[in-house]
């Protein structure tokens, strides 16, 4: 029997809990009464506001301009008027300016014309990706045009599409692959042209067998040179380092990028957004978000404009069926818990979870059991880092590869002493950087 590929070091197996929303087809959210479009929806410098209070905006119009190399444009999801510009706190605790937009009663229809991307060359495609404000939609929101700008001295042979969605609960990518698979794969072909990759590979975990079959069918029908690879379930396979190890058996060294091993990785949702940006000329102003968890009355996958308030999403899904203990933006392993339901969603919001009360554990002393070491996909020693950081030895922690930690949460997930490991790593990184 052929071995099902996965990454080799560490990883954990949480229940996938996708059952709540996996069978719910993508539904479009009715236009909310107000949108809060933040200017920092991406990794890097916040965008610069192009509009002022009282201005009217058109659907898809650029309202924030990239400032700096790693930054991205922001577009208005609706036609309407700007009520005010105010400071908001996003779910991930980032504070930034945001437009509060009141949509018009009547919204323009989406344009029907399509563009033949084959006739455009790589740099034209790249500049329209930049203009459309595309960012990585798996959660990290890294500006796509920066990622796809390949330096002259680097060569890319493979473009890997991330359809893993290894976070429990989330089903947005799953629904995109099922319902918009053609678009996403065509988007992947566009990226392959930009980065000049010879191979295009889509990685999907084996808990989505219907996706694998569906994508394989599309590939066969359209004759794309795309490989679809089923991967053994393991968290955090959706991380680009683990994904490249699983699919290409290449390890990205500390502090390096996929580029350094000749590969580019993009989320399947990003590929879909790229298709829409290039072929349909639609900037990135809406996305699919899974609203799910045991406390949501009707879990759904919602196509919602960027800037929708979480409360609107909750209302659309019937509110809470029971009192939630936590609201989380993103997945349960790396997502951010927040308390204000007026918080807006951003380009990177892949999920809105309402989780019920969980068993409370009391922390005990570290037992040195080694589960964190065995679970760490980067093979760090979280227990050791924890000891250094809690004793204030930040420099020692930095020398013990603290900066390689990507906060995936495997260590804290398995820790029988229930120590706040990820929390400590985050604190340690901040304080360690400050000291330097």
């Amino acid at each position, binding site marked *: 029997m052929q071995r099902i590929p996965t990454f080799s070091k560490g990883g954990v197996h949480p229940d996938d809990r996708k059952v709540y929303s996996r069978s719910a087809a993508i539904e479009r959210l009715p236009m909310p009464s107000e949108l809060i479009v933040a200017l920092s929806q991406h990794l890097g410098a916040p965008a610069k506001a192009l509009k002022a209070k009282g201005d009217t905006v058109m659907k898809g119009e650029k309202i924030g301009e990239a400032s700096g190399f790693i930054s991205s444009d922001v577009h208005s999801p609706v036609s309407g008027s700007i009520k005010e510009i105010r400071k908001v706190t996003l779910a991930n605790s980032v504070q930034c300016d945001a437009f509060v937009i009141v949509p018009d009663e009547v919204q323009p229809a989406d344009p029907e014309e399509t563009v033949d991307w084959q006739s455009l060359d790589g740099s034209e495609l790249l500049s329209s990706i930049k203009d459309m404000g595309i960012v990585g939609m798996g959660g990290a929101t890294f500006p796509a045009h920066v990622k796809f700008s390949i330096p002259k001295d680097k060569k890319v042979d493979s473009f890997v599409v991330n359809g893993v969605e290894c976070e429990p609960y989330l089903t947005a990518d799953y629904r995109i692959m099922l319902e918009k698979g053609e678009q996403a794969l065509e988007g992947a072909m566009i990226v392959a042209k930009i980065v000049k990759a010879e191979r295009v590979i889509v990685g999907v975990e084996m808990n989505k067998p219907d996706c694998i079959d569906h994508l394989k069918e599309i590939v066969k029908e359209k004759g794309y040179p795309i490989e679809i690879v089923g991967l053994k379930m393991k968290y955090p396979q959706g991380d680009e380092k683990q994904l490249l190890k699983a699919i290409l058996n290449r390890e990205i060294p500390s502090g390096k990028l996929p580029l350094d091993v000749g590969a580019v990785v993009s989320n399947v949702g990003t590929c879909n957004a790229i298709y829409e940006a290039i072929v349909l000329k639609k900037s990135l102003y809406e996305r699919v978000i899974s609203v799910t968890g045991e406390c949501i009355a009707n879990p759904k996958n919602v196509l919602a404009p960027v800037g929708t308030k979480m409360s609107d999403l909750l209302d659309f899904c019937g509110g809470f069926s029971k009192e939630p203990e936590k609201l989380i933006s993103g997945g349960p392993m790396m997502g951010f*818990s927040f308390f204000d*339901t007026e918080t807006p969603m951003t380009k990177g919001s892949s999920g809105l979870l309402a989780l019920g009360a969980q068993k409370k554990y009391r922390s005990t002393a570290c037992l040195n059991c080694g589960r964190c070491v065995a679970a760490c996909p980067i093979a760090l020693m979280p227990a050791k880092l924890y000891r250094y950081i809690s004793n204030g030895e930040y420099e020692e922690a930095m020398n013990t590869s603290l900066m390689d930690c990507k906060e995936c949460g495997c260590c804290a997930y398995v820790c*029988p002493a229930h120590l706040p490991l990820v929390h400590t790593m985050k604190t340690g990184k901040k304080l360690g950087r400050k000291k330097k």
Partner: protein
Amino acid sequence: MNKPTLTVSSSPHLHAKADTASIMWSVSLALAPASLWGVYVFGFRSLLVLGVSILTALLSEYLLGKLYKEYTLWDGSAFLTGLLVGMNMSPSVPLFIPFLASVFAIFVAKWVFGGLGANWANPALAGRVFVFFSFTTPMSSYVAPRTLASALPDALASATPLSLSKTAVSGGTLGFDGSALLSSMGYPATDLAQNLSAMTGISAFTIDTFLGNVAGCIGEVSALALLIGGLYLLARKIITWHIPVTYLLSTAILSWIFGGIPSGLGMFGGSFLSSIFSGGLMLGAIFMATDYVTSPISHKGQIVFALGCGFFTFLFRYFGSMPEAVSVSILLMNIFTPMIDRYIIPRKFGDTRAFRKKQKEARA
């Protein structure tokens, strides 16, 4: 919509089920077959020994918890320490000995260094070694198991097979391997073992040590019962194979190669199987060396640690003067644990040979 009371905390928001207490109680459960066998073959007296050591350990933990305002009684670690202390006692010891051993284990070995997670030595082993060297005679006189009671003369029953053969070898009886030596001295075997021996060709004595029909400490005699507990822990993923398998194999292989030398059998004259089954090796390898707190944190480090345990066990057994091979070896390697953890670290993701080579070239 009513505003619910929401919790805000760092990710991850999901958690595996295990916690400290469930692990400790599972290990105690895994020790149950071996302790029950001990109580069965050595009688009520051994139950008393176990009871005294467990109660003392719990009481000590309770008092220290009061003192330090840390309530750690129900995390199960004190119960486990007490149980292990009791299992490491001869069934016939005066009851003040397990009492002292447990007090030493909890007070000195565990809490003096800061309680759970901070001790450098395995508390149960430290307790055992402390009383062994303080009260050597009562600690090294044993009674015959029920299954051999009528056949085993008192002279032979008062010592473990390992110390009997050690005494004989140092007394000049050469030319026999362990089990042959004991048979020549008149060490009996159960009928079951003799039947199995006829079927398999393995000596009856070895089979008896495997099943637990020998004199010894309450918890160490039955390799079979300990193995059952060990398999349970492996299945529950509470321990990994790294320490027990490496420890057992390294001891057995070294014993097989060099173990025959003291008794005049030369190289490759030692006995592979009986070296695994006899003495406290099984108990030590599965339950004592695998103690989380006092063993290395990475799998690589654990293998080094277990190799050290195996080497010292072999050395003390065949070339040492005292019969305390397993406990002393593990304690000795406990001392090395912080050092192993400092220098033997897992290879970081991406730190491949090719990458290192490239870096070297870049520097040159």
